[in-house]
Structures are given as C-alpha cells and as structure tokens.
C-alpha cells in the first residue's frame, strides 16, 4: 500500500463523509438502538471530528494505516433486520464439542429470531446491548461509555456515535457462572460492509465468568469492524476472556477492549488471531484497586499479506497490582506485524509488578515485525520488566527432531506449535484450551478453513 501526499485532505473528507452519514441517518440509528446509547452520540461525533482517524503520525498507529481503511468509505447497515438465516444451520463452529452457552451475533446485532436478552442461572443476563439498555437502564447508566477514557482517540468515539447493538453480559455480585458463554460474531452481507459493534460486560463483586468470542466472516467481502468492548470487574471478580479471530483475508478488524478492574479482581484474556486481512487489537486495562491482576496474552499467526498489530496499555493506578503481558507471533510469507506494549505505573502504585514480553518468529526474509515496549514508571518501589525477541526457528532444535526420524515439515510444525503453546497454556478452561490448541495446529498446517474454502456454505444465505 502507498499513501498519497494528500492523506490529510482525504482524511478530513472521510470524516466529513462520516458526519454526513450520521446526520442523514440519525433517526434510523436511534430507532434501532436505545435511549441511553443515543444520548452519547452527538458528543461522541464531535469528539471524533476533532480527533479524526489516527494517521501514521500518531505514534501508536505508526505501522498500521488507519485512514486507508476508511477510504473509500464502506456501507453501514443501520437496520438490524437485514440478514435472514438460520445461523445454527449454516454455522459449523471450529470449536466443536464444547459445552457452552452459545450466542450468535450477525454484523454486530442479535439476529431477529433469537431471544434478545436471556436470563441464565444466578440471574446472569446475556444478550443484546440495546435490549439491556431498554430493560435495565440503571446498569447502562452506570457502566456504558464510562471506561474508554484511557484512549482519547477518535475511533472509539466513532463507535460510540454509530454503535447500535452488541453483546451485553451481566454477572451479579457473588454469582459464579460454571458454563462458559460462547459468542460467535459473524460478518455476512452481499457486499463490503462497515460494522460498529459495541459490547459491555459487567462483573459484580466476587463473581466469576468465562467468555469465548469467535470472530468470523461468512462471505468473501471486505468487512471493516470497528468494535468497542467495555469490561467492568468489581472487587474480587474473575473474568476469563478468550477470543479467536478467524476472518477472511480482505477483512479488517479494529478492536478496542477496555477493562476497569477494582480491588483484587483478576482478568485474563487470550486473543488468538488465526486469520484476517488486517487486525488491530487495542487492549486497555486500568488497575484501579489494590491487588488487582491483569493478564493480557496474544498469539498471532499470519501469512501472505496479512497485517496484525497489537497494542496494549496497562495502567497501574493502585498499589500492589500485578500485570503480565505476553504476545507471540509467527509470521510467514510477506506478512507484517507490530506490537506496542505500554505500561504506566502511577506515583502511588507502589509494589507494582508489571511484566511484558513479545516474541516473534519470522519464517521468511520478507516477513516483518515492529515491536516496541513503552514503560512509564512514576513509583519507586516496583518490579517491571520487558523484553522482545525476533528470530527464526532454532536450527539446532530442528535438527534434533529430524535426527529422530521426524520429517522437516513436521519438525517445523512441532516447533511452531511449541512456540504458540506458551499462550495456549494460559487458557483457563481445559476443554477450550485443547480445542484452541487443535485450531492452532490446524492453522499451522494450513488446514483451517479460509473463507473461500470452508465448510460454511455461504450459498445457503438469503439476504
């Protein structure tokens, strides 16, 4: 990709176009959403116009072309009832035989034929964010659009301006959900499409839950998803979030995940990027109470012209908190990637332990990775470390495996799998760990469904 000199001008054009789209469609946007979400739109749009889409001059977007994603501007479906299909019939999950409570979202909306908001054991609520906003305004009033302040950039505000629906999860105080919840996000349309999904997960005091999110594209078009997820963990809450990103090679996915953690809460997220044209994941965590723990792990496997950029920002605002960041990647062919890991330890956050590591294997001379740690430490009694490696498969290990009769291809796969295993081993739910392990193995073997050769029969869809 190359960038014309007048990127800035085009940029402003894009932003004007987005404002026009908003103004023209505001009634529709608001009709298919909820009052509480609508109230934030105008201010968010103004903020977006002021900040704009971050360009390469923005430090944290140096290696990924954001303005390019919005030009030309893609169509947005602002009416949710546009896809009619029996998702259960057409969707064959790559994580089979897993005992989960499963929920499907199509282009960021709960499909019309599903229960909009379900109540599970222990008064757990799960379903549509818009529906939750209508039925439980007190919850949204307290938590919606409250945790994005770590990122003053425009794309989050763009989402707030346009977002109409997404996943809502509420775990009341003291409830420990035994069965994981699995969310399958599907992008499907007859043409290119922009999606602004918005998720909100609220975990009450001393609650616990596991959530698995799978991102899929069910059509070969360009899908641009600019998704925002806010997560609130009250005191002693435990949350395990596993995310499998498996989208077609034209798709572009920007995800912004914000976690706010209160005292002694623990959040672990594993983001496994298997396929995608361009993926940018932003992870933000605010450790707001003592003894909170945040573990942010990521694995990215990319080939051909895929581009994967992970950005994390862990903000230690309270003493005695722990954070671990581990991101690992294998890049093949001409794939490119970036990692930026930021840790901020505020002045009062004594006894912080914050660790960060990013390890990469480049399988070809053309694959590229840019990796950068950013540590800002304002407290004096802390333990912090960071490290980054970029290398090839260890030739000595390769020879060792081959010298036992294992062929070259298999030996390479074993080493790549072993490298990836480090991340997989952090997945808390054992069957899920096994399944994701299988998926990663399949991916490394090149056997995992790509969009145009998968078992999902896109021809069955009716628009």
């Amino acid at each position, binding site marked *: 990709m190359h960038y014309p000199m007048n990127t800035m001008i085009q940029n402003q054009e894009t932003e004007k176009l987005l404002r026009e789209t908003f103004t023209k469609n505001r009634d529709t946007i608001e009709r298919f959403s909820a009052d509480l979400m609508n109230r934030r739109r105008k201010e968010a749009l103004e903020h977006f116009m002021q900040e704009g889409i971050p360009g390469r001059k923005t430090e944290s977007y140096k290696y990924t072309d954001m303005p390019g994603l919005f030009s030309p501007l893609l169509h947005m479906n602002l009416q949710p009832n546009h896809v009619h299909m029996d998702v259960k019939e057409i969707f064959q999950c790559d994580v089979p035989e897993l005992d989960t409570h499963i929920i499907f979202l199509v282009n960021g909306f709960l499909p019309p034929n599903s229960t909009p908001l379900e109540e599970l054991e222990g008064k757990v609520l799960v379903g549509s964010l818009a529906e939750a906003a209508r039925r439980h305004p007190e919850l949204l009033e307290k938590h919606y659009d409250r945790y994005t302040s770590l990122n003053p950039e425009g794309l989050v505000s763009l989402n707030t301006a346009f977002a109409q629906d997404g996943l809502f999860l509420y775990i009341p105080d003291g409830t420990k959900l035994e069965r994981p919840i699995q969310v399958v996000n599907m992008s499907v349309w007859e043409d290119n499409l922009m999606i602004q999904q918005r998720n909100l997960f609220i975990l009450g005091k001393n609650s616990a839950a596991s959530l698995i999110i799978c991102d899929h594209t069910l059509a070969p078009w360009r899908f641009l998803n600019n998704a925002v997820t806010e997560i609130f963990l009250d005191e002693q809450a435990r949350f395990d979030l596993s995310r499998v990103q498996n989208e077609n090679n034209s798709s572009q996915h920007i995800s912004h995940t914000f976690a706010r953690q209160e005292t002694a809460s623990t959040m672990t997220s594993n983001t496994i990027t298997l396929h995608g044209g361009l993926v940018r994941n932003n992870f933000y965590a605010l450790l707001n109470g003592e003894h909170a723990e945040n573990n942010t792990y990521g694995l990215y496997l990319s080939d051909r012209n895929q581009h994967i950029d992970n950005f994390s920002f862990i903000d230690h605002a309270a003493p005695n908190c722990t954070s671990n960041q581990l991101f690992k990647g294998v890049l093949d062919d001409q794939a490119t990637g970036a990692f930026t890991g930021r840790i901020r330890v505020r002045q009062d956050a004594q006894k912080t332990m914050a660790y960060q590591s990013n390890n990469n294997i480049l399988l070809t001379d053309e694959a590229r990775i840019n990796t950068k740690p950013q540590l800002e430490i304002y407290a004096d009694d802390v333990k912090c470390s960071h490290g980054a490696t970029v290398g090839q498969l260890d030739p000595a*290990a390769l020879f060792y495996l081959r010298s036992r009769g294992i062929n070259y291809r298999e030996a390479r796969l074993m*080493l790549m*799998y072993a490298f990836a295993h480090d991340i997989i081993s952090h997945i808390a739910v054992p069957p899920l760990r096994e399944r994701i392990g299988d998926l990663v193995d399949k991916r490394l073997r090149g056997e995992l469904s790509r969009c145009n050769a998968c078992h999902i029969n896109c021809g069955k869809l009716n628009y």
Partner: protein
Amino acid sequence: MLSIQNLHVSIEGKPILKGISLEVKPGEIHAIMGPNGSGKSTLATVLAGRDLFEVTEGKITYMGKDLTEMAPEDRAREGIFLGFQYPVEIPGVSIVNFMKTAVNEQRKYRGKEPLSASDFLKFMREKKDLVEFDSQLTNRSVNEGFSGGEKKKNEIFQMAMLNPRLSILDETDSGLDIDALRIVARGVNKLRSKDNATIVITHYQRLLDYIIPDYVHVLYDGKIVRSSGKELAMELEEKGYDWIRQEYAGNGR
C-alpha cells in the same frame, strides 16, 4: 554396516576432518577418543546429517547406501541414532509427543501401522524401565530444565524407543556423576545385540570401564592416527593426549 572412506569435511570452508576411514560391522563397539578440537563431534554430527558441514571428499556408505545426500530424518529411519553431546531443549514439545511422532514416523517408513495411544504408552513404559528413565520426565517438555544427567539419560531412553542399528554416542559421559554414568552405560549394554553397532565418542577412558569397546581409535587433527583394541584406551588414560600431539603435530598439516 558402516564404511567411511577418506572422509573430508569442512565448515564454512575450514577443513575439520581430513581423510577419515573407518569400518563398523554389526555387533561391534567402536570407541573414538581424542583431545578437544580433534573433530570427534564433527564426525558424529556428519554421520547424523547436519547440513552445517560440507563433505568435500570421500564416501560414507551405510547398509550399502550412500549416506552423504540423505536427509537426517531418512538416516534416522534407516537406523542411525545420534546421542547428542548437548541435547537441545525444546520448550512446548513434550517427550511423549516427540517420541510418539518419531516412533510412528519410523514405523510408517517401514510400512507398519502407527501404534495406538495405549500401545504406545505401554511400549514407552517398558523402555523407560529398561533404561531406568524417571517416569515423571516424559510428561515434561523435551530437555527443558533437565539436569545434565537427565538430558543424557533422555538420549539413552530415546535410543531405546527407536531401537537403532547404528548408535553414535557423542560424549554421552560428559557432565555425568558416577551413578548417572553407570545407568547410562547399563542402558547402552542392555540395548546391545549382535545386529546393531555402537560408536562411543569420549574424551575420557572412564566410560570404557562400563562399555567395553572392541576397537579404540584416536582422532587427532581430523585424522585417525591410531587404531587398536581396548588396551589403547588404558594407554591414553595413563599418558594423556600430549604424546599424540608431540608425535603427530606437523604430520597432519
């Protein structure tokens, strides 16, 4: 079984082996001794097929086949086993998975069905007992965090699993205490048969008290300068390697 004729080997243009000839027959144990830097490990690694080294002259024939162009995995499937001087740590690959893959690939090469999971575990248990390999270790990643002795025992365990025709043990004794050395030697002796052969590479005579060689060769400056029976090892132990240096320095250059 193995016939090496006038073997010359270089690494990055620098000659290491300068004309080695060696014949190994089934049932035999050969010891190769020599001072550091004489080319012992290079010889072992070249036989196993590491592509760091370039064979510039000479021939290696194994079971009637030319070895020099054969991939390392094919050599292994044909029955060659290298016990590494420095076994590699491979985090994330369990020994069970490693050995299951290796055993089944070798079975496939010989036209046999892969072992079922339960048959494999049974087979592995037998071999672990045979070579006194700690049963907890097989669930761990290959050599990761192993002590020097555990690593070497793991090499012998792998040898037992793969049942090679020709084993080349590269300084298997280095870094071992006397108990570990005994266990390793016992393993090698148990695996010995009239159909297989072993090349033991060692710096010290100590190992040869436990694994009795039929022949001892002294390697110096890339050449075998002396070959004899097991008494040669005693002589080396007594006199050290200095006399070889004195006797052969200059001749080889």
